């Protein structure tokens, strides 16, 4: 079974803190993603990475950065957390089988910024 593991299920941080969200996948997938999920807004892509040290901005990258130093690990960084970054954060990894791009998700990190 594919396993995508997010380091924390729940986090509470203060405004202005630097926050690290970690994600590890065990299937040697090339592609990894960070999304946030908010009621009424669905899943929105923050950043994705298609190889080690490679990254591309998603739809809402402002206020976030990412790091991928190893293939299995993709980190999301909130440089200075703000209350509007309170959300459910989902990490995913994907692989390609023929024409199918198949994506698997972690259990999510619910972040509250006070």
């Amino acid at each position: 079974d594919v396993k995508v593991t997010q380091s924390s299920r729940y986090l509470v941080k203060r405004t202005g803190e630097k926050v690290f969200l970690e994600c590890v996948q065990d299937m040697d997938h090339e592609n990894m993603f960070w999304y946030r999920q908010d009621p009424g807004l669905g899943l929105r892509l923050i950043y994705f990475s298609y190889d080690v040290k490679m990254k591309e901005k998603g739809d809402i990258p402002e206020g976030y950065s990412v790091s991928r130093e190893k293939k299995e690990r993709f980190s999301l960084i909130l440089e200075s957390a703000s209350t509007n970054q309170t959300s459910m954060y989902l990490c995913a990894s994907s692989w390609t089988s023929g024409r199918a791009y198949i994506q698997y998700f972690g259990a999510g990190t619910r972040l509250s910024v006070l």
Partner: protein
Amino acid sequence: TQLLEQSPQFLSIQEGENLTVYCNSSSVFSSLQWYRQEPGEGPVLLVTVVTGGEVKKLKRLTFQFGDARKDSSLHITAAQPGDTGLYLCAGSPGTYKYIFGTGTRLKVLA
């Protein structure tokens, strides 16, 4: 901008009833996935469909990919309370980016 519209948005039914959820787009997808997400958890992959007209079954769940690969449906037979959750479709236009549907929140009452 590519969009995936899901309908209905909300569905509350009694145990034992059948239901169908739709996922529609004007864009063509190379593959489409369906996920179920429970509160506080990440989406869990149910199925991937690739070929136009393809039908896949997963116990009481039947998934169909439209002939033109622009739409998909999920049919649940004899729904059970354990089917409760948020159902999401996600299409890939042939790249590693995904377009997510707006979601259908299903509640099955015992």
